[in-house]
């Protein structure tokens, strides 16, 4: 139990004689609609919308459900490839893993709910993304997450960190899905808008994938899972709105996650699918029954009868619009053949879950609602589903004019680089995330080959994991897959285009550093308000960067999510200021490795091994943590990335690793080559090592060599006996490979400027994040 920062909003008024959630009928603004949108709805309906209609339209036309500001850009992303089974448009995308298996994955944001109630918000975020995966017939096999918190000096930060992490663990651990990786970044720009992005991957037989688009006329529409309550009503519209305290009032209760019920729902759904009792299925996520019914109807080209009297309710007397908009968790909508309903019911009954007929698929593109046993409303599916699409105005932000290349001569090299080095390694953005990921069960599933704490997570697929215990096979016995999520928002702020490209490249580097080949990506694009032309410009640039990198690296974008309005208006000294997050694109990437036994970890293995630099150092300090911490100035132009070179580099390292000559490989990112080397010596779980490195580059100062971050290079080690072979192999790729030192006992030495004891460094590295978490309890 931690001290909670003051909760902004008042607790909801005492609920004696509960009032309906909506009464300001004419007030479309309260529903997050613009005047134009409201007029359009009038036109489509031929009359003024009432609460029910307004509720449904506003939910479906919200940014969250309709992607109205981002659609035009997302369309430009590459979506096809020879390994792609299903691209964007379904609940999640799928890639061909070989051996008859497909992997299904997606990442989704749950930012605003996590800011309001971090434990439940993060928990239900994880629950939601897992439903997206198993609604397609896949058994979730791993989770990752990408987290952004405010400054580590912000007194609220410890509370958010500890609650979000607990929430993620609570849900994932109970579900029995290992959380095998992620990233955590602390930055002032998230003080009032934390980000929680959750990623899930599942495995399914390629011919056993379920889609939401398959229902047939005459099918029964069935509701399964938890009962519907007053949870998160208006969540969909809330998620698309600026976060100022006034608007927060219309939110009803927080959604409470029930991972136990979701585990039952998972097993029941997979069992029913296995028995072929389901024709089509869609989870109830944002906008609950509204989006699931309209989307299922739309995608299949049919309509539905929906009987609002039939829904199992937790709170009695909910109004039709409340039922339609409830975001209660752990529910699904599905279509089944009439004759299969009884068998379906038996499966859900075995797992103790509701399974209720709520409608029927009809041959008319309309949803006809019944209420109190009478026809209630009829809504055209196309009108509701085809929300607006905007090409919003955009303008290159003014601040970018001031982002110039670093004039390094204006800054002195600090006298004591050892001190600088220590500060970097204990900084929570670099320090070990162990205090976080040990709260997640990362070893359940018996598939985790390389656990969290290193570059990418590496997993295999054991026979028993398949959706059905009877369909066990060994087709993919030695094959492995790799998972990584990355994004650098400071970089995206300083150079949005490169920020998009870097996120993709960095994921690929992490996967290549383990020996894997990138296959496809999912993304979470976290931005401030799209109504701000500067934000829209950042968005368009980021997407362009992702697109170019994804094309070059041959990693199509198969699913994703956009979260706008990550900004908060607050009063400061009588003035209202808007605190906006940096553009924060986060990429989740999946790669494959033919022989999982060959995957390597980044840490040094044995004293005497030789250390090499693969690639070249530019030594550009723009945007680095070093410039921020030491010179208090990170707002400078960072080095760009050469995508063609990136490809040669990654092909090279992958080939070296798979030839078996490489004992460890680490990419260079935050904190530069110094941090890469230091982490390599202190993260070996069985021993502490050190190194001696000589790396002098003409024209570069020591601080440039040590701490520049945006480098296209890796640190690798190998046994000294294979040096010649290694050099020859690298030469084939036109990539420079330079021996820079040897692995030593317990001291880290670089260029006569750095000399540090490995064990004391390890202690500080292990404590950097721990300190923040334990502060929540003091």
């Amino acid at each position, binding site marked *: *139990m931690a*001290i909670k920062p003051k*909760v902004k*909003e008042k607790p*909801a008024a005492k609920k004696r004689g509960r009032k309906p959630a909506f009464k300001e009928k004419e007030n479309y603004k309260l529903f997050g609609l613009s005047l134009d949108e409201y007029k359009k709805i009038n036109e489509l309906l031929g009359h003024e919308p009432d609460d029910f209609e307004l509720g449904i339209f506003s939910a479906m036309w919200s940014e969250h459900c309709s992607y109205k500001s981002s659609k035009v850009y997302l369309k430009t992303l590459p979506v096809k490839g020879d390994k792609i089974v299903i691209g964007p448009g379904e609940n999640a995308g799928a890639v061909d893993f070989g051996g008859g298996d497909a992997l299904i994955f997606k990442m989704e944001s749950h930012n605003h709910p996590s800011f309001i109630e971090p434990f439940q918000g993060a928990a239900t975020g994880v629950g939601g993304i897992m439903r997206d995966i198993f609604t397609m017939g896949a058994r979730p096999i791993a989770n990752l997450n990408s987290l952004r918190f405010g400054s580590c000096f912000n007194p609220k930060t410890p509370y958010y960190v500890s609650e979000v992490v607990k929430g993620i663990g609570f849900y994932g651990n109970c579900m029995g899905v290992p959380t095998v990786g992620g990233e955590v970044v602390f930055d002032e720009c998230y003080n009032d808008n934390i980000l929680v992005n959750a990623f899930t991957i599942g495995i399914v037989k390629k011919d056993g994938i379920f889609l939401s688009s398959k229902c047939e006329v005459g099918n029964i529409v069935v509701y399964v899972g*938890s009962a519907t*309550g007053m949870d998160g009503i208006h969540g969909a519209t809330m998620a698309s709105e600026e976060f100022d305290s006034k608007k927060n009032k219309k939110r009803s209760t*927080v959604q*409470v996650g029930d991972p136990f019920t979701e585990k039952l729902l998972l097993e029941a759904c997979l069992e029913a699918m296995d028995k072929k009792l389901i024709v089509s299925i869609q989870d109830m996520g944002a906008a609950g029954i509204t989006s699931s019914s309209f989307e299922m109807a739309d995608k299949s080209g049919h309509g539905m009868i929906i009987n609002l009297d039939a829904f199992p309710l937790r709170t009695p007397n909910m109004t039709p619009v409340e039922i339609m908009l409830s975001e209660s968790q752990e529910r699904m909508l599905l279509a089944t053949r009439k004759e299969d309903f009884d068998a379906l019911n038996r499966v859900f009954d075995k797992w103790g879950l509701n399974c209720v007929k709520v409608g029927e698929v009809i041959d008319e593109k309309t949803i006809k609602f019944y209420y109190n046993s009478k026809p209630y409303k009829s809504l055209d599916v196309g009108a509701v589903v085809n929300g607006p699409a905007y090409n919003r105005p955009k303008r290159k932000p003014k601040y970018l004019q001031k982002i110039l290349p670093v004039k390094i001569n204006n800054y002195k090299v600090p006298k004591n680089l050892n001190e600088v080095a220590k500060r970097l390694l204990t900084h929570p953005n670099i320090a070990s995330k162990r205090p976080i990921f040990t709260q997640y069960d990362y070893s359940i599933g018996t598939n985790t080959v390389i656990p969290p704490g290193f570059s990418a997570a590496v997993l295999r697929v054991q026979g028993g994991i398949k959706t059905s215990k009877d369909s066990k096979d060994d087709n993919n016995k030695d094959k492995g897959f790799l998972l990584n999520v990355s994004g650098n928002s400071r970089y995206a702020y300083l150079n949005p285009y490169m920020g998009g490209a870097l996120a993709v490249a960095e994921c690929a580097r992490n996967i290549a550093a383990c020996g894997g080949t990138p296959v496809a990506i999912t993304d979470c694009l976290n931005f401030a308000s799209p109504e701000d032309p500067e934000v829209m410009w950042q968005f368009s640039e980021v997407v362009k960067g992702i697109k170019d990198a994804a094309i070059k690296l041959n990693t199509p974008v198969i699913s994703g999510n956009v979260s706008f309005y990550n900004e908060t208006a607050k009063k400061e000294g009588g003035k209202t200021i808007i605190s906006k997050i940096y553009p924060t694109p986060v990429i989740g990437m999946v790669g494959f490795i033919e022989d999982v036994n060959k995957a390597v970890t980044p840490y040094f293995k044995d004293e005497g091994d030789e250390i090499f630099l693969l690639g070249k150092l530019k030594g550009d300090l723009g945007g680095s943590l070093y410039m921020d911490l030491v010179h208090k100035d990170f707002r400078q132009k960072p080095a760009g990335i050469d995508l063609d070179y990136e490809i040669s580099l990654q092909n090279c390292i992958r080939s070296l690793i798979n030839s078996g000559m490489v004992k460890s490989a680490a990419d260079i990112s935050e904190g530069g080559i110094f941090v890469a080397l230091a982490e390599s010596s202190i993260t070996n779980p069985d021993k502490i090592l050190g190194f001696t490195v000589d790396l002098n580059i003409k024209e570069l100062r020591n601080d440039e060599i040590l701490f520049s971050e945006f480098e296209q290079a890796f640190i690798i080690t190998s046994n000294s006996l294979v040096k010649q072979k290694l050099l020859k192999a690298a030469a084939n790729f036109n990539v420079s490979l330079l021996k820079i030192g040897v692995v030593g006992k317990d001291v880290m030495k670089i260029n006569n400027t750095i000399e540090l004891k490995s064990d004391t460094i390890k202690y500080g590295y292990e404590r950097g994040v721990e300190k923040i978490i334990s502060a929540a309890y003091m």
Partner: protein
Amino acid sequence: MSKKAMIKITLKEEVLDPQGKAVLSVLKSSGYNNIKDVRVGKYIELFIDSGTENPRGSLDEEVKEISEKVLSNPLIEEFKIEIK
């Protein structure tokens, strides 16, 4: 002099109670069919040295503040205090 504050924390009526639901299902399957619903909350006892000066003016106010800020989550929970 010492006092004891007893605080019952319950989920608000409209909030889902996963624990209560699970307990209910086990009670039903054990044949306790007359049980219609179960809600699980917290019960916290604070042992207070009432000799020490009270940092918040009155004990009542202090306990209320603690219940609100530390013990409960006002977004989903309510509490009742009894002091003896």
